[in-house]
């Protein structure tokens, strides 16, 4: 294993180094307003929901799928909880449990559409993006005139989830748990190995006895779970929900995963990569806010930095690959005959 651990750690180190370079750059440009503890905890807080949802999304991408419905799903979960909160006396924990159940069901729906009905992932989850949003509107709380109201969720036992212990927000703690658990499941369980196998080659996976549709379905259900948890933390922070919650969110976890080295073609990547990708994006966005520049330039610089970083990553990786191959070939010689 040695060579490959080395190679993959090396790649990890490159991405980390680039993240640190970015932080250093912003530190120089933005000064203490960027480098303060408060700001870092804010960066992590902003990265957290993306990374939590990113765990599930990474699984799906590893199986060579994609999930575009996470934003709407988040709204559906939140609006269900808001209804329970507004119209029933159920305790908060059961409200959260029902929210999670809704997430699981929504994930299952995606799974069935994609894995059982054989609808291409992109179009299937794009369709459910519309469906979940419509359902959210359907159950949205309206006033007497039918105008949709944002629904407060202001009970302290709930909103405390939006808070922090010291400089670490609860959502960041949750993210840490999700990332670690997600990585362990991916690397140290049969299910995790199956995800890679399905993503690398569905035919070979079938020939190896893997139940491909089932594996894919479970991956989508896990996304549902992650989204539900993300939804809880988001609404706890906003202390309310609206029918528009999560619009456009779906691209964030996907982008984070891809920046973190998860291939959309399937079969490669891991959760740590997605974590780095999430933190990278959050750092970039946060840092740009501090540079006192026109919003328009922020968009331009954001795009350029992303491309620059992946180009650098690609060049460096090519080099490392070549070096590794040379070493590998020399090492192999001993085994050859």
């Amino acid at each position, binding site marked *: 294993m040695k060579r490959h651990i080395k190679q993959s750690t090396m790649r990890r180190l490159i991405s980390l180094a680039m993240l640190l370079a970015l932080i250093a750059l912003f530190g120089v440009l933005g000064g203490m307003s960027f480098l303060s503890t408060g700001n870092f905890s804010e960066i992590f807080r902003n990265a957290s929901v993306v990374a939590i949802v990113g765990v599930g999304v990474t699984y799906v991408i590893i199986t060579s799928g994609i999930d575009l419905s996470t934003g709407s799903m988040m709204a559906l979960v939140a609006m269900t909880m808001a209804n329970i909160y507004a119209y029933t006396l159920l305790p908060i924990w059961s409200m959260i449990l029902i929210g999670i159940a809704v997430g699981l069901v929504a994930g299952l729906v995606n799974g069935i559409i994609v894995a059982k009905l054989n609808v291409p992932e992109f179009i299937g989850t794009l369709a459910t993006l519309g469906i979940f949003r419509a359902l959210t509107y359907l159950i949205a709380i309206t006033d007497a005139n039918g105008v949709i109201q944002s629904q407060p969720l202001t009970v302290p036992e709930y909103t405390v989830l939006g808070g922090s212990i010291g400089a670490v927000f609860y959502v960041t703690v949750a993210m840490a748990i999700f990332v670690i658990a997600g990585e362990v499941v991916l690397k140290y369980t049969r299910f995790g190995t199956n995800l890679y196998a399905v993503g690398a080659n569905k035919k070979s996976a079938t020939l190896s006895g893997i139940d491909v549709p089932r594996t894919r379905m479970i991956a989508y259900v896990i996304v549902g779970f992650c989204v539900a948890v993300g939804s809880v933390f988001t609404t706890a922070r906003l202390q309310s929900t609206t029918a528009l919650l999560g619009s456009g969110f779906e691209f964030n976890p996907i982008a984070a995963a891809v920046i973190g080295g998860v291939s959309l073609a399937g079969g490669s990547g891991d959760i740590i990569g997605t974590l780095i990708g999430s933190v990278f994006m959050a750092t970039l966005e946060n840092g740009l806010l501090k540079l006192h520049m*026109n919003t328009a330039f922020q968009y331009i610089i954001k*795009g*350029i930095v992303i491309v620059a970083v992946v180009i650098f990553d690609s060049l460096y990786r090519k080099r490392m690959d070549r070096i590794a191959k040379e070493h590998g070939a020399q090492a192999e010689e001993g085994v050859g005959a």
Partner: protein
Amino acid sequence: MKKIDWEKMSKPIILVGAIIILSVLRPQSFLTANNFANVLWSVSVIGIMTCGTVFVFLAGGIDLSIGTLAGLSAITVVEIIDKMGATNASVIIGIIAALCVGAFAGMVHGLIITRFNIPAFLVTFAAQSVYLGLSMVITNNRIVSAREPALFTSIGSMKILGFPLPIYLMIIIALISWFSLSRTTFGRDIYAVGGNPEASEISGVHVSKDIVLCYVFSGLTAAIGGIVLASMTQQGMASTGSGYETQVITAAVIGGVSLLGGVGTVPGCIYGVVIMGLINNGLNLMSVPSTQSGLVQGVVIIIAVAFDALQHQDQSRKKVKRISEQIKGTASS
């Protein structure tokens, strides 16, 4: 007797079925030439862009930048008209400039993607952000209007034989794409590259060059789409074209294009585009509340695509059954 190829028929069946359903539900308003013109007109920009971007999909890539790139092109043309005065000359210069913007952007995407071997998703995702920013800088977040000259505004609205010009543009671009994909070596190479890049390279296909060309074509049609959009709305602003990338991908996938590359046709894309137009038109004509349109749209899309997918399985399954029964029949007799 020639047998009907049911697999190939599933798309026409869905299309005709949709038209029949809508005609029954809304006989007066749906089945009119005017309404068909409206349906096609409303999807013409999507159609134009899909016919270009399908090259990228077939080669196994993706282009998320076309929406904001269309916006940037729209702004280029209206800014030039605005700054140079509303003359025909400035319209022509503006259009040429916008096309150059599109083609150049596409070339840059293609070169970065192939040179550094970077996922197209990331490059075009980042480019999306860059073009939005550029558009905001150029317009300073304001609307730039171009209500004149007629040469410009007629691109989006002039009617020939009762059908607006953008529909003809869509048809012309579809024909060009269809021809180059199905009858030229370039097109054949694209299918090969999308189906198996490694084998294509070994077969002497200039894989990188072809991929770059695909992105150029995609950028070019994005620019054309942007010009048409600007003319239709007689204005350009930073948010022009935003979200078109998703609609284009949706249309292509409904039309049978695989995002993994190598599978799909231009007629399929047009089918996807028209189906999307019909769904939206149906939703509007039946006064489905906007909050619920996503539900109807989603369900219809899933049914259409799943029907298509199952149709393939079913047909082969049924055929197999029929034939094996025949075989058994002859075996026992």
